[in-house]
């Protein structure tokens, strides 16, 4: 019984997987974090000038996260105040340069490790002034995990150089190609489960009363002065009940996408709709999470026929 469970676990984490799946996620994760999320959607806040302003104007708010403390310690930046501007500037340059190298897979292992560390330091610094946010959390962990796996064995400059040097093709499968993707899949599931459980534990069924969403739309409309949430807040609260239930169900059953590959595309479709609706109505962006859905590439490929067949059946009907 125990041996069977261990075998199942071993298959779950270490069954041979396509290295190209892992490489795809490497390109998406490092590419988007370096090319987009370092600048957008909070470009003004995340930008180097804003972070340097934080170190001077916001110095009295500085309360470094443990992660930042750990990362600053080897560089002697662990004083009472924020890191020095020259140090932050250097880390920023490393984040961009190493992120670009990691994306194309040149000197991939050190580049991925350096990029993961630099991005983690930048965002951790940004969140060390009395306020943190969630959007980057999973992406930052994902970068670290990807950096430890064979994420650049294929679809990389390193792989092309190796092939040219040895004359033999790169391997297509590896028993170490699956675990980084699995880790991110379970991180996603745990995060969604946390959101679903929080609502139930904090509010029980009253969270679905429609007035709750009216209130949050109101709060966002006041904070951002945007039209969309203001409009949503003026709708009858009863209209928010069904979307609230759907959102909660998506969060609560997201782990099905891992355990039942046949339904992965349905869960991801509803998850994407949830995030896009939240962005359209409240302006709250979780694009990093959406891009991390790419860790389900194998599930989607295996069931690629399912949505296509379904649409075809509907057309034929």
């Amino acid at each position, binding site marked *: 019984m125990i041996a069977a469970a261990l075998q199942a676990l071993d298959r779950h984490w*270490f069954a041979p997987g396509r290295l190209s799946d892992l490489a795809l996620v490497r390109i998406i994760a490092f590419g988007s974090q370096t090319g987009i999320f370092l600048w957008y959607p909070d470009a003004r806040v995340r930008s180097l000038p804003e972070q340097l302003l934080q170190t001077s104007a916001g110095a009295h708010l500085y309360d470094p996260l443990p992660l930042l403390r750990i990362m600053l310690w080897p560089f002697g930046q662990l004083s009472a105040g924020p890191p020095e501007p020259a140090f932050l500037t250097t880390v920023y340059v490393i984040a961009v340069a190493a992120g670009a190298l990691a994306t194309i897979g040149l000197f991939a292992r050190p580049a991925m490790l350096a990029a993961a560390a630099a991005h983690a330091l930048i965002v951790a610094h940004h969140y060390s002034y009395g306020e943190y946010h*969630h959007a980057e959390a999973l992406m930052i962990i994902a970068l670290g995990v990807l950096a430890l796996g064979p994420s650049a064995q294929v679809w990389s400059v390193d792989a092309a150089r190796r092939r040219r040097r040895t004359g033999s093709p790169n391997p297509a499968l590896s*028993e170490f190609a699956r*675990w980084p993707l699995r880790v991110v899949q379970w991180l996603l599931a745990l995060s969604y489960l946390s959101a679903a459980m929080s609502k139930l*534990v904090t509010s029980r069924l009253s969270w679905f009363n429609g007035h709750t969403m009216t*209130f949050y739309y109101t709060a966002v409309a006041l904070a951002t002065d945007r039209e969309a949430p203001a409009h949503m807040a003026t709708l009858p*609260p009863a209209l928010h009940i069904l979307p609230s239930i759907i959102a909660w169900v998506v969060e609560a059953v997201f782990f099905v996408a891992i355990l039942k590959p046949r339904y992965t595309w349905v869960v991801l479709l509803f998850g994407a709709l949830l995030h896009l609706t939240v962005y359209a109505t409240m302006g709250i962006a979780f694009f990093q999470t959406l891009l991390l859905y790419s860790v389900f590439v194998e599930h989607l490929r295996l069931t690629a026929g399912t949505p296509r067949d379904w649409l075809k059946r509907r057309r034929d009907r």
Partner: protein
Amino acid sequence: MSDASRQTRVLKKSLASVVVAGVLGMQAAEVVSPHDGRWWPFVDYPMYSQAVGPGATSRMLELRAIPCHRGSPARRVTPYEIGYKEFRLVGSLRGIARADRTASADRDALSRVTAAHVVPAPCILEIWERAVTTTAHGVEPEQFRRPAWNRLASWEVAGPGSVNE
């Protein structure tokens, strides 16, 4: 497979297993017993989980600066221009408006950073509030169309005193 490569494979698997257990363990621990973001990026996700009923009031606080130059209009001070973040600034403003224990320190800090970073330099800082109350039928559109602001507090940047209203 040679003994050496088998050993390498087992070692790699063991290391990967340690990373898997460590990462997922930390995330699971944070979900079960959260620490309010202290162990970021391992965080729980409780956003928007507090239920409310009809009649709940949402409040928005704003910091405004009145320049020393006579005749210059008051303007909103955004958190970003003074090195703050939104919720952190709102927390400080709320504390000042309520005359909390930290009000004096927060007021001094805001005076200092606005004097250094806001252009034109302000002589008076004010805290304004806008509140919207929901009803059983949603929010009346009029509340968004004609926002009503109330001044909660004001103080001189250079001076020691403050007036809560």
